[in-house]
Structure formats: C-alpha cells, structure tokens
C-alpha cells in the first residue's frame, strides 16, 4: 500500500501530464485542416488535477519521500489550475489568429504546469531543480513559439539567463549537500538548526546561491533584467501565463525552502531579502512609470508585485506565509486577465499593445475596457477589488513582524503604480478614440473567461473571508 500512497500525492501532476500527451497525440493524428477540440482535452486534464487536488486536501500524502501533498502545496496547485484553466480558455482565438500549432502549444502549457506543480510539492532540493528545469524548458519554447525574430530573441535571452540562474541554483544545492549530506529539506533544516550557534560558511554560501537562483526565477531586483524583454517578445497570453504561473511555482518553493529548511539562518538572510524586496518594489514601479508599451509596463509591474510577495516572505510569520498564497491567487487572476485583454485586442500583424492604441477603447469595446479597468485597479490595490485585500494581507504580515519601513515603502510604491495603471484607464475612458487595426470580435469562451476573472477579482475583494481562512489554515500545520 505504500506504493499507492506514493502515487496518490502526484495524481494531480499525472492528470496534467496525461492531458499533455493526449494533446500531442491529437495533434499528430489530426488531418490537415481538420478541427479538433484540443483545448478541451487540456481543460479536462486541468479539471482532473483540480478535483484530485481538492480530494487530497487534508491527507498530507507523501510521495517517494521527496514530494508532499500538504495543504500549502495543494493551495498552490489549485492556484496553478485556475491560472491554467483561464489560459486555456483564452487560447483558442489566439491560436487561430497567430496560426500556432495547437497541440504543441497546449502540451507545452500543460507540461509547464506539471513542472510548476511538482515544484510546489517538492521537499527535496534536487526535485525542485528537476521541476524548475521542466517548467523552464516548456516556457522557453512557448516564448519563441511564434517563430518571429522578436520571439526568438526573447526566448533565447530568457533561455540564457535562465540557464545561468539554474547553474547558481544547482551550485547552491551542491553546497547544501556539503553541509548536510542530503538534498532533503528536512535533513538540511535539522543540520542547520543544530549548528545555529556556530554556522559553517558552507551553509551561508549555499544560502546565497539558492537565494540568487530563486531571485532570478521570481524576477527580483537585481536579477530581473530578462523579464521585460521576455514578456515583450513572447506572445501576449504566454507572457501572462509566465508572469503568473511561473511566479506562483517559484514563490511556493522559495517560501518552502527559506521558511522551513533555512529558517534557522533567518538572521543571515532577512536583511538581504529586506533590501531585495525594497529594491524590487521601488525599481519595478519607478521604471514602470516610464513605459509606453503596455506589455513592458505590465512586466515592470510584475516585478513590483514580486517585491510585495517578498515582503510577505521577509515577514516570515504565519500571516506572511498565507499572504503569499492569497496574493499569488489575486495577482495571478488580475495579471493574467490584463495580459489576456491585451492579447484579445491584437491582430495578427499588429500587437496593439502601445498605450496609444488603447485610446477610446471604452467606446469601441465597452465590456473589454471595463474588464481591463477592473484588472488594473486590482493590480493597483484599490478596493473593492481583490488586489486591495492582497496588499492588506501582505502589509499586515510586515507590520506584525515590526517591518514598518518595508510596509511604508510598499504602500508608497503602490501609489506610484496606481499612477501608471490609471494612465491606461485614462486612455481607455477619457481620450478620443484612436485609429487602430480592429481586432476580431472576441469569442464567447474568451468573454466568459474574462467575466469569470472579473467576478473572482470582485469576490476576493468583497468577500475574501473563506479564501483567507483557507490560506491561513493551509500554512498552520506545515512549517
């Protein structure tokens, strides 16, 4: 029976992988010109992952000693399923428009998600690394899937810097193995805790290298350089997927490693992470103000949001851990929604992603403009949207640990960020309409996905009680 419970923990991942293989097979069996609902396969696989993750809730299944399905991991898995489902719902229209290979596209999204889920569930540094590579490879290819110069450049840049950061991470694992003789997090944690008084420099080197590796993946300053280029070059929806799902997975692992195994070293890493969080929030918003391309603006805004998540991580209390979970959901829905809206407005030859091309959008597409406004207000953290509760949660964590300075930097940068989100709203609602190539009318499914995202944004902003409760219980029993 040991065997069965080992597999129980990874059933959600298996669902996603199975769906990915099914997508590839469907593409291979498809006659040229034949329509096939490949996206439906992807959606079914994700729904299966969501249901099995919900069924695993509270069982704390352990898989092979290196994977855990605790409620923290499952919460992140559910967030990933939500992001994945929304992505899949937005995709069909864009695949048809850009003539992307549907089967490969969905398979890459699903394999990427499988890697992300594994990363959230892993309790062994090597498995985290494995997951990191799985998800990264999928996302590198997705970035360049349009086979245009800008996409290829973005994909290549992302690949080089990503490989670089992976090397840091792997080197960090090697040092951690040197310290504890194991790559398992609990073993590393107990060794580090036992030597808390007399820490070997090896442990600190491992800490530093792992920190750099994670900082790359969550695009924290000063390791954020790849982000704007990669997001700008990637297909818009893929950029939305990257900026939300990858970040969710990376933050899950980041939180697990730093707040469990490396918790005893907190005096060493807290000041460094404090500075990184502050710099990330400040640089993300200040440079964001100067952007006129919406995708680049959202790229810098996603850097700033990584900063807010780091604030919760620095706080390192129970509120902070659950704030990470809640914020990932809030940010995921809002950011993916914003990117998807831009994607829906593009045409095959014109991305229509400059600020000017949004002029007068509320007259041309009132519903899309309204949805975009809601997402932007949520990203800006204004009530009654989800973003407000997310910021509240994060800053509560900071204040509870006495980090008033970080909280003040956070609220001030969020005001600056409101400035650039508002610029888009000004364009959409208050500027005379611009002459832009008209996009195709959005499909029903895409509109439904937009509506769902808007509803989630308001639901989490007005009645966040149950999800907050869930998030705070998810971390209570773990570490």
């Amino acid at each position, binding site marked *: 029976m040991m065997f069965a419970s080992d597999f129980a923990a990874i059933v959600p991942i298996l669902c996603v992988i199975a769906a990915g293989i099914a997508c590839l097979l469907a593409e291979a069996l498809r006659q040229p010109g034949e329509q096939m609902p490949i996206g439906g396969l992807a959606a079914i696989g994700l729904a299966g992952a969501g249901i099995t993750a919900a069924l695993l809730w509270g069982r704390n299944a352990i898989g092979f000693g290196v994977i855990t399905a605790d409620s923290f991991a499952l919460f992140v898995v559910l967030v990933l399923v939500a992001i994945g489902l929304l992505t899949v719902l937005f995709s069909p229209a864009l695949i048809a428009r850009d003539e992307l290979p549907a089967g490969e596209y969905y398979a890459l999204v699903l394999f990427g998600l499988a890697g992300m889920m594994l990363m959230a569930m892993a309790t062994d540094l090597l498995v985290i690394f494995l997951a990191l590579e799985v998800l990264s490879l999928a996302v590198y290819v997705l970035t360049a899937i349009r086979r245009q110069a800008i996409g290829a450049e973005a994909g290549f840049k992302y690949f080089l810097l990503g490989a670089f950061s992976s090397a840091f991470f792997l080197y960090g694992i090697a040092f951690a193995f040197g310290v504890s003789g194991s790559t398992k997090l609990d073993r590393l944690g107990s060794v580090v805790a036992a030597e808390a008084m007399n820490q070997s420099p090896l442990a600190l080197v491992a800490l530093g290298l792992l920190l750099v590796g994670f900082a790359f993946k969550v695009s924290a300053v000063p390791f954020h350089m790849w982000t704007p280029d990669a997001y700008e070059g990637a297909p818009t929806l893929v950029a939305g997927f990257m900026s939300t799902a990858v970040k969710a997975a990376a933050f899950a692992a980041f939180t697990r490693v730093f707040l469990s195994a490396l918790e005893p070293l907190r005096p060493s890493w807290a000041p460094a992470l404090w500075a990184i969080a502050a710099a990330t929030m400040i640089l993300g918003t200040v440079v964001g103000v100067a952007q006129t391309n919406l995708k680049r603006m959202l790229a810098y805004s996603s850097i700033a949001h990584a900063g807010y998540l780091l604030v919760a991580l620095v706080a390192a209390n129970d509120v902070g851990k*659950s704030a990470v979970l809640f914020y990932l959901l809030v940010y995921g829905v809002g950011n993916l929604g914003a990117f998807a809206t831009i994607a829906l407005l593009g045409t095959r030859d014109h991305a229509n992603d400059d600020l000017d091309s949004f002029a007068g959008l509320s007259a041309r597409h009132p519903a899309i403009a309204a949805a975009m406004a809601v997402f932007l*207000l949520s990203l800006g953290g*204004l*009530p*009654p949207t989800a973003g*407000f*509760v997310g910021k*509240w949660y994060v*800053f*509560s964590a900071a*204040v*509870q640990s006495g980090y*008033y300075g970080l*909280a*003040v930097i956070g*609220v*001030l940068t*969020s*005001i600056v960020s*409101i*400035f650039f989100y*508002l610029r888009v709203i*000004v364009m959409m*609602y*208050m*500027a005379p309409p611009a002459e832009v190539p008209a996009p195709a009318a959005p499909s029903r499914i895409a509109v439904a996905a937009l509506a769902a995202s808007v509803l989630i944004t308001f639901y989490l902003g007005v*009645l*966040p*009680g149950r999800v*907050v*409760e869930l998030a*705070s219980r998810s971390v209570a029993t773990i570490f």
Partner: protein
Amino acid sequence: MLTTLIFLPLAGAILLLLLKGREGRRDGLLRWLSLGVSLLVFALTLVVWARFDPSSADYQFVERREWIPAFGISYLVGVDGISLFLLVLTGFLTPIALLSSWASVHRRFAEFAAFLLALESAMLGVFVSLDLFLFYLFWDAMLIPMYFLIGMWGYERRIYAAVKFILYTAAGSILMLVAIIGLGSLHYSATGEYSFELQALQEIPIPPNLEFWFFLAFTLAFAIKVPLFPFHTWLPDAHVEAPTAGSVILAGVLLKMGTYGLVRFSFPLFPDAALFFAPYLAVLAVVGIVYGALVSMVQPDLKKLVAYSSVSHLGFVVLGITALNVQGVQGAVYQMLAHGVSTGGLFLLVGMLSDRRHTRLIAEFGGLKAVMPRLVAAFMIITLASIGLPGLNGFVGEFLIVLGAFRWDPRYAAVAVLGVILSAVYMLWMFQRVNYGTITEDENAALPDLTRREAWVIGPTVAAAVLMGVLPGLFLRPMQPSVERLLQRVSREAVVTAPASSGAGLQAGPVPHAPIRETAGR
C-alpha cells in the same frame, strides 16, 4: 436598515448599467430611475433620523457580521449623532446633483448616474463604518467613481484634474492603511486576537512613539481630504474641472469626510497625540481661513472662487474640532452640514449660469437681476447663507466655532473672525459684479430664468439653508450626547485638572444652543 441604505444606491447603479440601451435609447427611463433610487435613499436617511434616539450617545442601528474572521475583521456599522446628519446630507445632495445634470450630461447618462450612485454608496459606507478595515475600504473605493466622474464628464483640463485628485488623496490615505494595520497588530499583541473595531482599538494601550506616528498618518489622510492648508492644491483643480454634480458632491460631502475622520478616528483613537498636535492643526486652520478668503477675492472664475471659499470654510471646521469643547465641536459638525448645503447650492447656481453662457468668468456676467429675477433671488439667499448671515445656516456653525475657539484661546478666534469679514467681502463683491449693474454682454440680455427642473434643484437647497438657520436645535440636540462622549475621551481639562472634575469642566459653559436660538429667531 443601514445595510439596505448603503447598498441600495449600488444596486441602483448596477440596474442602470444592465438596463442601458444602445446610443442613449431609454435615456428618459434611466433618468427617472436614477432619481427614484436616490430619492428612496434620501427617504431612508430621513427614516433613520426620525427613529434616532437623540438622548443617547451610543451608536444606533448597529449591525455586526463576521466578515474576514481570520483577521478579526467584521462588518460593523452604526450611526451616532455626529454621523447621522452627514448621512442625511449625503442622501439630500445626491438626488439634487443627479437632477442638476439632466440637461447638461448628454453623453452616456447611464454610466454617469451609475458612478454617482456608486459614489453615494461609498460615501454612506464611510459615514457608518465602525470597523477600520470597512472604513478604509469605502474610503478608497470612493475615489474610483469620483475619478471617472471628473475625468469623463468634466471640463477642458479634466484628465489632469482627475489624476491629480486620485493620486493626491490616495497618497495621503495610504499611510493611514499602514497605521490601521499597525493598530490591528497592537490589538493582537495586547489581547491575542486581531480586531479592527473602533471601540476595541480605543481600549488598547498604544506606545507613545507609535501613537505619535499613527496620529500623523491618520491626520495626513484627513487633512488632504479636508483640505487643510497647505494640502489644498488638488481642490481647485478638481472642483473647477468636475461637472456640476461632481462639484456639488465633492464640496458637499467628500470634504466632510476629512473633518469627520478627524472627529471619528484621529482624535478618539489617539487622544494624547491629538492634544499635542491640536494647536498646530489650529494654526494651519486659521491660516487656511484667511488664505482661502484672500485667494477667493482675486479669482476671476466663479467656480474657482467657490472652491477657494471652501478652503476657508473648512478651516473653520478644523478650528472648531481642535478647540475641543462642546461649542467648538458642535459648531464644527454643524458647519459641515451648513457648508454642504450652501456650497452645494453655490455650485449648482454656478453650473446653471455656465450651462446658459458656457463661461464661468465673473467679468462675462453683470446685471442678471433684471433678466432672471428668480435665479438671482435664490443666488442671494445662498450667498448670504454662505457668508453666515444670522437666520441662515452658515451663521450658527461659525458662531459656535468662534465661541469655542475663544474659550480655548482668544487669539485663534480673533484671526478666524477676520475670515468671517473677508467672506462677506469676496462673496458680496462677486454677487454684485454678477447680478447688479448694467448688462454688459448682449448674450446676457435674453437668458432664460429658472426652469421648473432647476427650481426643483435649487428650491430644496434654499429651504434647507433657511431651516438650518431658523431651527438649529433640531440638528444640534441629537449631536450633543455624541459630542460630549468624544470630549470625555479627548479632553484638555482632564490634563490640567483632576480627572474627576473633567466632566464638570465641560458642562460649565452655557448650554450651547439656547443662546443661539434666541439670536437666530430675532
């Protein structure tokens, strides 16, 4: 009751957006529907007033529900004598603002009315929230509809004004967010549970240095909203560029949220810091009184003149609050209402003039008395009310405030009285240039007088100004217990004398409204 009150306008707004036809079809229906909803809300606020127990200092109509239990955040609303009339004022001004825009808003009326109703929901929510999280939610949520109202239906520089408005006020209030979280966290370390309820937070000990910073964070947010000199620079832009309805709501209700916040949150939550900072606030207030009046005097633009006069009038309110005696605080609350009515009325009249002439420059008018006698008559009453003529609403508040300030420190009162005189100068001078003399511009000779609709807009405003001037006791009596409860918490006497005699010290003055009624009734 209060929940219905808060969310009824929002429901109306959603209904409007659902019913909206393409390209302005069904506009007539939407207009009546929006007016109907806002009148229903007004009726409900009157019901609250009628059923309010004026002898009690406690919060009434209290509703409490668990909301985000993990953070001890509850949905907790209630009214006391201070917030009661701000509710009524909000309910009163919203239908008037809507009706005033029937002719001037041609484009996208459904959205306009929906934003206005959503704004009303948020404003009502601000005045009844007794949980700081809930309060902050409404406080910030209010910015969004106002931003769209200014930015989409305003005058030429509307976008600049809208962005300046939202950034200024949001930047001010965001530090308050940190302070609110800090208070909740202090409650957690004191009791082991989170709470953001106002009354629970008043019970916990706050370390003096934190109290100092928290007070400043709260007060900065409120001072920008008031706006207290020197934080007023957003106000002229926002007021001038906003559509008439926006200006009415902005001046009538939104500015009061600043002063209301001082009375409801800053002072009772941080009494020691409040006592320490009160003189500084008072200095800023009297500077604002005189500065606002002087700047008003030289404005060529009617709307700007009224906007700067608000800086001066709101300076009185802050002075009354910082006086921290019954007369001062009661006068301050009364002046909030009076200013809402009379400045709202002034913006309505300016809007009517600018609808007719498409200019707001004083120099373009002159001699209107002969052309539109009824409009000018209303203009005169509202002007006199704004100046503070006895028998009209402005007098009661300013008199009580000056009296309260005098009892605290005569120097403030002396400077403030200067503001009363100056207000007569700039208002009467403006009135004379606009309405008397010969008709200089040909377009002015044939301007139509008040229409039926406009009479319904300005009539209730004039009536309210007279009612508040003649029967101040109607408004002052229900406030008194709540004001006294505030003063028991934040009391200068308690610091100077023994705590036991603090209550007696407060009661020592003359009963506040008895002498006023005498003066006003003459």
